[in-house]
């Protein structure tokens, strides 16, 4: 196997860059979490923000810090380490590339963050042209995106080196998955880069007077949905390739894991219209075509669910478990590295079902822009993905810093996950119910002129504040664990677990590494889904909009 003893530990020079990413990520979690707490408190109607701070300012900060900074930095740090661990130490050139990417992203974060703090950019991270933010906000986000490309290039360089040194062999699974996610990210971010560079930056600098709103929104959502898969795939990497090793089992099928990642690359991108289902100016037939493509991306998730539970059951039965569900009891529930991501996995079942509802064409009318949607992505991103990221950091941080995950921290990790789960059950649950009653998302507390309907929403908003408070407690716990593992835990060796396939004879087909083929199909699907409606949007465009600052 490729996992020879020499490669078992991530090189300390690579570890340093990964840890740099994690410091920014967990810093964003701390700040963004505080913003989230404040939002739920404001929405309860019992609390007002001091010192003239605006609700929509902290909402923008929460979205940017959690949705872009925490995720992108954690993912790049994790994937950089995973490639180093499985495809070999990064070359000095790749490492330098990684550092340049890291600093570009950090500089961009500081630029955008400053503009949000100065209340020059309360436009939410989804931009909402013709709301016009300060140009430094847009430039900062450009730095974050371009930085992530450079950062990702480091992973691709090391993967390419491995392929060159091992002709005819399938690449290590974790490296393959990391590169798929990076490539998907690069293709997806072209959309947001296009709207920022060609529309929003020139417009906010005063070089052009107007902006075409629908083109900007379409380019944004071309990026906005693969963005959530960019968050999800690193969690899947952990579930597919790391969890089996942690529980002492085997990867159910290496080839099918690769196939599911390829399906994500193909179908994550040509689906942006399902965020624009209730928008004017887009032909309903093209909306429905993208709805069909959206449903295609459910298939690899079905494969993932099967594969994970097959691994669990086979492991349980190998330990002598009997009966239909006997295997469930023998799973290592006292191991935070397993239990924390498992709670995330289980949350993905209702989370995914909710997602199917949102994407179901006219059914979206029931929930579009209600707080149901906020509840939905707090299950997917803020539970499934984030709990898995926490679970990863419990072994990866000590592995990188040369420390040990102690029994006490392991226990605290499990407690943290349950605190998170309970807080989220309150908050996300209440958001789902309130959304079905019509309560809007992204809104400060309001009784809407004492409307009877709006008054019915308030108890749910109080439940969200209770949930938000419990979740903030969870954030404090995870920060305690992170700081302990980074600086104070006893020195030692913590394993970077990498699973092995059950059937080592079955070699993954080399066609999976044929990037020309997969990138070609990806491009073809994107062109199919977007070319005609996009030409329609441009040809039938109304007069452009001048900028507004309504905050």
């Amino acid at each position: 196997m490729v996992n020879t003893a020499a490669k078992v530990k991530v090189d300390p020079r690579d570890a340093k860059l990964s840890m740099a990413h994690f410091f920014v990520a967990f810093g964003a979690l701390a700040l963004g979490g505080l913003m989230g707490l404040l939002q739920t408190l404001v929405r309860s109607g019992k609390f007002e923000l001091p010192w003239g701070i605006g609700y929509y300012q902290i909402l923008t900060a929460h979205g940017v810090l959690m949705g872009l900074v925490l995720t992108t930095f954690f993912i790049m740090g994790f994937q950089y380490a995973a490639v180093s661990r499985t495809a070999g130490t990064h070359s000095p050139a790749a490492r330098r590339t990684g550092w340049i990417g890291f600093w570009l992203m950090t500089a961009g974060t500081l630029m955008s963050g400053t503009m949000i703090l100065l209340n020059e950019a309360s436009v939410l991270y989804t931009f909402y042209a013709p709301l016009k933010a300060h140009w430094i906000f847009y430039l900062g986000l450009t730095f974050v995106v371009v930085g992530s490309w450079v950062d990702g290039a480091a992973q691709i360089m090391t993967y390419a080196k491995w392929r060159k040194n091992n002709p005819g062999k399938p690449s290590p699974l974790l490296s393959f998955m990391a590169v798929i996610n990076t490539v998907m990210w690069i293709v997806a971010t072209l959309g947001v880069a296009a709207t920022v560079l060609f529309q929003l930056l020139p417009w906010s600098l005063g070089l052009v007077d107007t902006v075409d709103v629908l083109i900007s929104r379409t380019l944004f959502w071309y990026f906005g949905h693969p963005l959530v898969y960019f968050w999800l795939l690193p969690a899947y990497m952990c579930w597919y390739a790391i969890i089996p090793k942690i529980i002492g089992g085997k990867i159910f099928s290496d080839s099918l894991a690769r196939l599911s990642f390829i399906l994500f690359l193909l179908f994550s991108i040509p689906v942006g219209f399902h965020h624009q289902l209730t928008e004017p100016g887009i032909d309903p037939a093209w909306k429905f075509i993208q709805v069909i493509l959206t449903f295609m991306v459910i298939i690899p998730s079905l494969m993932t669910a099967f594969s994970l539970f097959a691994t669990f059951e086979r492991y349980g039965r190998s330990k002598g478990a009997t009966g239909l569900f006997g295997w469930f009891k023998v799973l290592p529930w006292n191991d935070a590295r397993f239990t924390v991501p498992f709670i995330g996995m289980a949350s993905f079942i209702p989370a995914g079902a909710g997602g199917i509802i949102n994407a179901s064409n006219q059914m979206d009318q029931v929930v579009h822009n209600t707080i149901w949607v906020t509840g939905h992505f707090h299950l997917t991103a803020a539970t499934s993905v984030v709990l898995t990221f926490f679970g990863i950091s419990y072994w990866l941080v000590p592995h990188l810093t040369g420390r040990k995950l102690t029994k006490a921290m392991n226990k605290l990790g499990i407690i943290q996950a349950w605190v998170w789960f309970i807080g989220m059950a309150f908050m996300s649950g209440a958001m789902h119910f309130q959304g079905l009653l019509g309560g809007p998302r992204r809104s400060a507390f309001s009784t809407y002129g004492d409307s009877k309907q709006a008054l019915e929403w308030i108890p749910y908003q109080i439940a969200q504040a209770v949930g938000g408070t419990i979740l903030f407690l969870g954030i404090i716990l995870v920060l305690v664990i992170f700081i302990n593992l980074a600086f104070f835990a006893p020195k030692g060796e913590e394993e970077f677990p990498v699973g092995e396939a059950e059937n080592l004879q079955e070699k993954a087909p080399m066609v999976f590494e044929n990037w020309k083929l997969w990138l070609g199909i990806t491009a073809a699907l994107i062109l199919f889904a977007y070319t005609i409606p996009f030409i329609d949007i441009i040809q039938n465009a109304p007069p452009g909009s001048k900028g507004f600052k309504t905050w």
Partner: protein
Amino acid sequence: MHMHKFEKIWLTFGIGCLVVFLTVVGVSAFYLGNKPASCLTTINPEKVDTTKPFDKPGLHKVEGKEWDYELVFVASAFSYNPAKVEVPLGAKVKVIATTKDVVHGFEMAGTNINMMLEPGYVSEYTTTFDKAGEFLVVCNEYCGTGHHLMFSKIEVVK
């Protein structure tokens, strides 16, 4: 590449469900006409007040159309015009709305009327008002500091 028999069964079942879902949604949308709001009409966002039908916001009885009334709304930060309107119970109504400035939402809480209003575009949705009572119309798309103060009320009366 080998696929386990159980996985084949699971995927057949799963994909079968997706096909059923899509068929139900597709037939409902394109055969029964329950498409989400997707009006393709454009308008100059700076001349909304002088463009028909937005020069006269409110409820208008119409003749010779598939619907009985047209309910015209103009949105701007942070209000709707009209701020309150009465609609007779059981009326088939075409809601026609647009915005004069930024992107707004138009959601009649507790109903399926939920559409985006974007500068330069007209949004339309035709439906029958078959439930009496006071309904809240909220802006559900962030539009600025007063976003949560932007609402209108539709009273469906017997």
